[in-house]
């Protein structure tokens, strides 16, 4: 089966391409990228005035299966991914049971094999039950195919635990994804600590809760030589710490979410629980720092931290609502609207943050349009506007921080493994 994508503006940072070209897909792979490709017979897609780029690699996704299939499943989450232009996701291990053993990972792999609509990579837990005490068996999980470890949702407090974990991860050459949060500073907080939390009378979470733990995680990375990735960074100090680590040549990378580079705590005036997440929306100053970090490359990746929750868990008092928002279906449009349209990132830089860099950090062969690679390609109408509404989502959950906003950029085709997996 062949697909010929004609006349699109092809963006492929891996090969430094930003030009109007054709792409030929054969047998699930990219077989040719060139001008005026002639091929017969084939499915022809006219991509004139469209962006053609690698399918997104979202390295921070909560698919909730097994355990909370009422929020999301591998099937629904990956369908949502395709709708958002995402062709590869990294599934976070905070499921029930947690992905902390070869056996549990086999269970998830089986579900993925049967139901996933896009590529699903698995992150194993750092510690058993993600409790921060006893290390999970990394070697056996690696045999089952995990590509990273993380206790996402929490961070091992004990320094000897994280030291051991990073030492082993370094030896196994598996990246450690750090949910850098010191709960001692969180103080039952539900939003950013500052004048807005003062006005709303809500408990605040200080920047310290994040950057003190980022500092520690970087320190241990330096000691052990492990590849360390800081997840969902939200505050100025964290960006500075990552920049300093990079200038020292450490193997440190970082990601930011669309909500953290777009929204600040001032949005919370109406106690909207769809703006409650961890880390919280920070101050305007922090948002500016995240944007600078994305612009100058300190922040390597954009990831959604897709965290589905049911209506019952969100339509309650702010203090009691769950933390987290969905993001698979809005991350591309928010990034186009906030970063490309505002001239903060070029299309190539955007493709790096959304596809090429996350793949490189995870060591997976994704995120490029190189000849011979899996044909994971999206075709995007970058000028079309749309309004985010509950009914626009394919995900089982609708807890988006961007409801009601007008965004620019619509995915027209998502091609996964050489097949049109989604078409608008």
């Amino acid at each position, binding site marked *: 089966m062949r697909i010929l994508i004609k006349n699109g503006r092809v963006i492929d940072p891996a090969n430094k391409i930003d030009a109007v070209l054709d792409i030929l897909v054969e047998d699930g792979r990219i077989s040719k990228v060139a001008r005026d490709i002639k091929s017969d017979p084939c499915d022809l897609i006219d991509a004139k005035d469209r962006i053609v780029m690698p399918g997104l690699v979202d390295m921070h996704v909560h698919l909730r299966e097994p355990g909370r299939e009422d929020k999301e499943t591998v099937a629904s989450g990956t369908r949502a991914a395709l709708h958002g232009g995402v062709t590869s996701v990294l599934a976070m291990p905070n499921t029930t049971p947690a992905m902390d053993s070869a056996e549990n990972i086999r269970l998830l792999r089986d579900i993925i094999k049967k139901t996933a609509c896009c590529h699903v990579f698995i992150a194993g837990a750092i510690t058993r039950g993600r409790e921060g005490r006893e290390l999970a068996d990394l070697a056996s999980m690696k045999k089952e195919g995990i590509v990273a470890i993380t206790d996402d949702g929490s961070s091992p407090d004990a320094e000897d635990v994280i030291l051991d974990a990073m030492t082993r991860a370094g030896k196994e050459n598996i990246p450690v994804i750090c949910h850098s949060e010191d709960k001692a500073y969180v103080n039952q907080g539900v939003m950013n600590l*500052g*004048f807005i939390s*003062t006005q709303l*009378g*809500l408990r605040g979470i200080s920047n310290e809760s994040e950057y003190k733990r980022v500092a520690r995680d970087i320190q241990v990375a330096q000691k052990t030589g492990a590849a360390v990735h800081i997840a969902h960074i939200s505050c100025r100090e964290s960006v500075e710490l990552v920049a300093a680590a990079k200038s020292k040549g450490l193997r440190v990378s970082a990601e930011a979410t669309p909500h953290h580079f777009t929204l600040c705590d001032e949005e919370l005036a*109406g106690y909207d629980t769809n703006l409650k997440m961890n880390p919280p929306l920070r101050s305007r100053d922090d948002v500016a720092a995240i944007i600078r970090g994305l612009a100058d490359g300190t922040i390597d990746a954009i990831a959604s931290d897709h965290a589905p929750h049911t209506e019952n868990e969100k339509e*309650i*008092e702010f*203090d009691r609502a769950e933390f987290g928002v969905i993001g698979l279906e809005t991350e591309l449009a928010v990034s186009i609207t906030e970063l490309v349209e505002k001239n903060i990132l070029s299309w190539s830089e955007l493709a790096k943050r959304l596809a090429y860099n996350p793949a490189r950090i995870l060591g997976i062969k994704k995120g490029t349009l190189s000849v011979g690679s899996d044909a994971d390609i999206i075709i995007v109408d970058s000028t079309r506007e749309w309004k985010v509404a509950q009914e626009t989502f394919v995900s089982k959950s609708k807890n988006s921080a961007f409801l009601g906003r007008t965004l620019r950029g619509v995915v027209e085709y998502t091609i996964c493994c050489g097949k049109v997996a989604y078409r608008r």
Partner: protein
Amino acid sequence: MTKNTAWTKKDLLGLKELTREELELLLNTAESFKEVISREVKKVPTLRGKTVVNLFYEPSTRTRVSFEIAAKRLSADVINIATESSSVRKGETLIDTGKNIEALKVDIIVMRHNCSGAALMLAKNLRASVINAGDGWHEHPTQALLDMFTLKERLGRIEGLKVSIVGDIAHSRVARSNIWGLTKLGAQVTICAPALLIPPGIEKTGVRVTSDIDEALADADAVNVLRMQFERDAENAFPRQLEYFKNFGITTERLKGAKKNILVMHPGPINRGIEISSEVADGSNSVILEQVTNGIAVRMSCLFLVSGANENIKKVGRLTSLPVNRLKRP
């Protein structure tokens, strides 16, 4: 007050969202009701046929009783729901509880809740009016209104007054509502608390901030002493009780450095010997019991205005037929 100011809000959720004119309307209307409750027959038929539900998720005696009396003085039917006696404990959500109460054809829900923002959430989901009787650390508008009413009654004005608020500002909805209301009406507000009990950014509201009680009292026309809730100190931010009394307690000795006629206020219930000495609480500067009386007038004003807005009182004819205008002092 401009004569044609009309109340147009369905709810009363906090003082931050109100205009100066709306605050003045609430206070002026309360003046008329103060006259009503000072009569031999303390009841007017204003809210006859209306139903008010007091929905209290936190233990409270004085605020609930005050609202109950206020509603009864207005001839409304009043139902009290406390968490212990309702299905709240069976896991019903706040919105469901609210909708069920509304389905009973209730006109006004007065709610006390331990979560900040709960009153707004209820109001957004119901057609019935919601009056916030305190939500978390966020706002307690009727308390601040009765504090302001007392100031105005005693001192004749609010504009230009120097008012100090002393105590646990960080966790106090009373402090927040007072700050919004007083600054909007032109008072100069000082807050005074141990450093750990001053919430971040509070100076951006236009208040002066100090941890020196003598400085806070020096030129104040009134001091509002907050209750120190030592039993709720989850964060260990509080100093020890004796230490607090020594450094921040309002005593006769301490008042020697203040204006002779300084008004001493307290939202109650008072902790004698913790934030205030008995001598001061019972002394000539204290207006603590007047505040309690004024609470009824202020809550009648809130119930009256909110109920009218709900029925579209913008029609002036309807407004003038209500007793409050006839009760206006010359």
